[in-house]
């Protein structure tokens, strides 16, 4: 069977095994999310029965209505959207500026400065948490949108990502623009920003999702209920209404859906970001 020019007909078993394993793993991955949706549509009390049910006996949207009318989740949805959009827009600009400068502009000590910045990646963000809170308190930014937005306006990771991409832009293009008399500002605005579009889109999705999902810092800096982002509101709600399982699940669905849709729509850019961030240099 091993010999002969014709390849032996492969056994069907390995293929079956590989695909069965994939289907099983996919089911295990999806069950928590599907059950979350299913329970959010159950009439009150149906989630607390034994043995647990997989599907609602009758589909109802009452919990989603309750979230918006009784629990004012619309406000938190707005807060989360505003904060995540502001962080994304501002940090995109500042990271693009710095990333481009590190990649393409020639100044003394550039690579040493960039190395120092990368070394800061070992410092866990939690180390800065307590003093950062005191700083924000001193600046009067505790319990404001700015308190969440300001510390996130630039990031080492974002600068790194833009630099990695900008390194591949041809120097000749910049030199030609300079010979034509373009100012450095103009080169950045009209040449670099458009060329960096793919990496900026990647970074935008990364930043938006990370800000939307962030828990620790908003938990620390936002103390007034009306300022909460969705994750903080959900965490509080799950403490107070922990018996209203169906309501909690509806809240979880509402928190996850926007980011999940965004990811599915722009998946390619997100995954490119992971790869750009993990290549060895």
């Amino acid at each position, binding site marked *: 069977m091993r010999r002969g020019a014709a390849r032996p007909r492969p056994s069907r078993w390995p293929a079956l095994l590989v695909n069965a394993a994939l289907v099983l793993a996919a089911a295990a991955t999806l069950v928590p999310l599907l059950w979350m949706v299913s329970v959010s549509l159950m009439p009150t009390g149906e989630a607390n029965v034994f043995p647990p049910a997989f599907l609602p006996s009758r589909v109802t949207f009452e919990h989603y209505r309750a979230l918006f009318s009784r629990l004012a989740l619309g406000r938190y949805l707005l807060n989360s959207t505003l904060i995540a959009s502001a962080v994304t827009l501002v940090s995109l600009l500042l990271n693009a500026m710095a990333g481009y400068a590190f990649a393409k502009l020639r100044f003394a000590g550039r690579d040493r400065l960039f190395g120092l910045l990368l070394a800061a990646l070992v410092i866990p963000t939690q180390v800065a948490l307590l003093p950062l809170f005191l700083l924000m308190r001193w600046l009067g930014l505790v319990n404001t949108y700015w308190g969440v937005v300001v510390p996130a306006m630039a990031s080492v990771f974002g600068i790194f990502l833009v630099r990695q991409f900008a390194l591949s832009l041809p120097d000749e293009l910049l030199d030609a623009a300079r010979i034509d008399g373009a100012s450095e500002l103009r080169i950045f605005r009209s040449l670099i920003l458009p060329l960096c579009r793919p990496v900026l889109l990647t970074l935008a999705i990364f930043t938006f999702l990370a800000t939307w999902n962030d828990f620790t810092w908003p938990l620390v800096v936002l103390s007034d209920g009306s300022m909460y982002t969705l994750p903080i509101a959900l965490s509080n709600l799950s403490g107070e209404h922990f018996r209203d399982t169906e309501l909690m699940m509806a809240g979880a669905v509402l928190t996850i859906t926007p980011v999940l849709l965004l990811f599915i729509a722009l998946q390619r850019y997100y995954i490119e970001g992971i790869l750009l961030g993990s290549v*060895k240099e």
Partner: protein
Amino acid sequence: MSGDRAAAAAAGARGAAARRGVPAEARAALWLLAPGLAVIGVFFLLPAAAALLLSLTDFDIYALADLGNLRFVGLGNYRRLLADPIFWTALRNTFYFAFVGGPLSVLVSLVAALLLDSRLARWRGLFRTVFFAPVVTTLVAVAVVWRYLYHPRFGLLNRFLGWVGLPAIDWLGDPRWAMPAIILLAVWKNFGYNMIVFLAGLQNVPATLYEAARIDGAGWWRQLRHITLPMLAPTFLFVAVITMIGYFQLFTEPYVMTRGEGGPVNSTLSVVLLMYKQGFRFWNMGYGAAVAFVLFVVIVCVTALQLLLRRRGGERA
């Protein structure tokens, strides 16, 4: 890039200019760098450095009201910390999470990547999206969902256990099972990320290596052991380092699943959760800063150890 001598000379000139700097570009760089670096400096590096100073003081609620009440206590917080059994519990829990959850997470990522990379796999794009979906979900929301999955009576997990004839487990109520429950959630949530990194690594393994091995009669297992895994070594190191650094910062999972307590009987209390409770619930900010700083030192040591072990391994090979 081309063999052209003029281009090489131009590149050489650029290299020299890059080292010395070009005045017009240096001026532009200053303006472009200043905002971003200022934000990182003021809102990250400065507070991180201040944490060290804060940990040498008895900053508490009285100091919060009036800085006149602040006293320098030297290494007092660290001495108190080392004598505090709660701190050691938190440290042990964090090591448990990182050293069991971290490797498990990497292993699941690797298996998922190998399955997806197999030539026999179908609908790869679909499976990849499904496996990745938990990564982009909001941790707080899925922690709420999993808390319910773990419910001893109404949760699905015990129902599945019942199907295969296993007894029900009080996942979050039993101190022996609470940390495994949190590890399971973390693995489910995170494996998709490293899977993507591994997939990229797998695609970089030259196909000719596998062809040669097949001609030599090497089976699936020997190809995995002697080609795939050695070729993945650099990817492995990157994934291991990043995963461990992340896992040492465990906070949100126990916070949401145990309503901010780290229970039952402190079995899921992590170092960061302890820092949070000390700093923001009891306002013992000096003590909390000392906790944070110990975590920093632990992370640096573990990262250095991983890099060192890897270098040793590289020399032997």
